[in-house]
């Protein structure tokens, strides 16, 4: 039982970070029908911005985090939209998929060239203390990861549902043409989606890098898991993405503990195929936003 609780709680903590990456992915998908194959690298890179702030520019950690967040929003939000997505939207889906794949190579190789190929220790945001709960050991970091992620999701949901800007963003996502007629500045709303995605990726990066360690190749796994989480949960739903992320985090650990470690990576994939074939709107998704 203690073991079950242990892997469950750890899975929730890791899953909450997957969820952050998955939510950003979902937002960009809704705003611009863009499947971002570089999403993993978007989570890898901000940690390096922080390291640059700390080690090269001599900033204190809090300032470096802000620096990393802003730089992420500029590079991964604004520039990504203006330089890559926008010029390519008229060309249809496939070229954009290819371009984001190329972007992922570019970000990975660029990080390696300019910061180095080795994994870097990354400062944790929370004390390394642990506590015991029903025989399971949980670290403060685990708990805080989960809480921060949930807080971000709740905040984002409130923003999207309760503020004018948030509702305009949702309208834009559902029907850009109608939103345009209603006087919504859709271009700006799409930009917001990209900025929020970049910010979420940065936060995911800050939370996961103390565990994952900062390394140029970190995005390879993360990006894939973000996709899977987003699709399993529901492509058009924020709560779907968080459910998908948590589910994968937990499922991965339970599989490895009780069923098979060799095939632990297979379970999310099989789930992914099953969901796409039998419930493409996702486990929590609603069918009207489905785009098959």
């Amino acid at each position, binding site marked *: 039982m203690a073991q079950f609780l242990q892997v469950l709680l750890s899975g929730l903590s890791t899953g909450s970070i997957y969820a952050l990456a998955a939510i950003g992915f979902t937002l960009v998908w809704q705003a611009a029908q863009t*499947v971002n194959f570089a999403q993993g690298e978007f989570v890898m890179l901000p940690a390096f911005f922080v390291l640059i702030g700390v080690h090269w520019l001599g900033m204190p950690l809090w300032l470096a985090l802000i620096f990393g967040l802003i730089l992420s929003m500029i590079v991964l939000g604004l520039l990504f939209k203006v330089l*890559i997505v926008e*010029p*390519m939207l008229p*060309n*249809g*889906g*496939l*070229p*954009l*998929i*290819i*371009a984001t*794949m*190329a*972007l992922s*190579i*570019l970000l990975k*190789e*660029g990080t*390696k*060239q300019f910061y180095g190929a080795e994994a870097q220790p990354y400062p944790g945001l929370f004390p390394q203390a642990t506590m015991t709960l029903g025989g399971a050991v949980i670290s403060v970091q685990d708990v805080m990861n989960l809480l921060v992620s949930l807080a971000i999701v709740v905040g984002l949901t409130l923003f999207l549902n309760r503020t004018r800007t948030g509702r305009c963003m949702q309208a834009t996502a559902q029907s850009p043409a109608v939103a345009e007629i209603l006087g919504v500045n859709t271009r700006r709303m799409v930009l917001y989606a990209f900025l929020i995605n970049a910010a979420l990726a940065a936060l995911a990066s800050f939370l996961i890098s103390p565990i994952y360690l900062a390394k140029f190749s970190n995005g390879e796994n993360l990006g*894939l898991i973000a*996709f*899977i989480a987003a*699709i399993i949960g529901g492509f058009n739903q924020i709560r779907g993405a968080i459910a998908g992320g948590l589910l994968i985090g937990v499922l991965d650990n339970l599989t490895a503990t009780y069923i098979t470690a*060799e*095939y632990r*990576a*297979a379970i999310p*994939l*099989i789930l*992914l*195929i099953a969901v*796409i*074939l039998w419930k*493409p709107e996702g486990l929590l998704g609603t069918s009207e936003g489905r*785009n*098959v």
Partner: protein
Amino acid sequence: MARFRYPALVLLGLAALILAPRGEGNYIIFIFTSWLTYSIAAMGLNLTLGYSGQISLAQASFMGIGAYITALLTLAGLPWIVGMLAAVAATFVVGLALGFPALRVKGHFLAFVTLAFNTLFFLVARNEDWLTGGNYGLSGMPRPNLIFASTMKNLPFYYFTLGVFVVAAALMWWIVHSPWGRAFKGLRENPVRAESLGVDTTRLTLLAFAIGSAYGGLAGALVSPLVQYIDPGSFALGISLKILLMVVVGGAGYFYGPMLGAAIVILLPEVLRFTEGYYLMIYATAVIVLMVFSPRGLMGLGERLWHRLTRPARQVRADMAGGAQL
């Protein structure tokens, strides 16, 4: 004269392929052989993606299935041709099965299903070491022994691969220029309309996957004796993305697109080698720029440039026509 120009160009290209490795070192010959092999795999994906509009991120896994089958059979002492036929048949059947999701979902969702399939293949190849050798892979596959020559040396193996390539390309040419090719394009352009005109889009979608996958299997059957070592990592998702890149960079839906794309993807690292660690960055940037300016790849770019070169004459006529009306 014009009707002889195309066959003449093809013959010229063939002659170039025959003469290319003359006097070259082993490395260049290996690169050429590798290019031919990947061209076959990319040609298959081009049928699925470029002609029929069904995205697949699993082409490397079909190469893998083909390579493992060929390796196991040739290591068991059977001739290469048997391994190759088994590989093509097996990948045809598996491709047919992978086509079923395409009947339900399209676009990005299909991309993810095929992506998942590729990774599952990797996991099976790695974990089932009683069959596949697991992480250690399989090695020491014999190269095919032809009646007139052994292909143990690199140059004969190049010509052997070239022979297979020419046959595969000719078959593909036949398919895409037959009524099937027209129906595949119809499936890509407007599946609903195609169905209403009597095109059995279900069967066609499955066939697009099956034939495309069989080409992947054929390429795998060549990789096995070429590298004489296969392991799961050689057929991981990254390789599928590489083949996809070949097709799109070359020009999806153009017959010569995948060959051009494979040449770029395989040869560019050689050309850019002097830039050391920067070449992947240069390469990635080039791909992004290409996708912005010519989403139809290099063939599309070439076509546009060709039109621009030949258009001035037409433009003059159009202007004159306008003037006459005024």
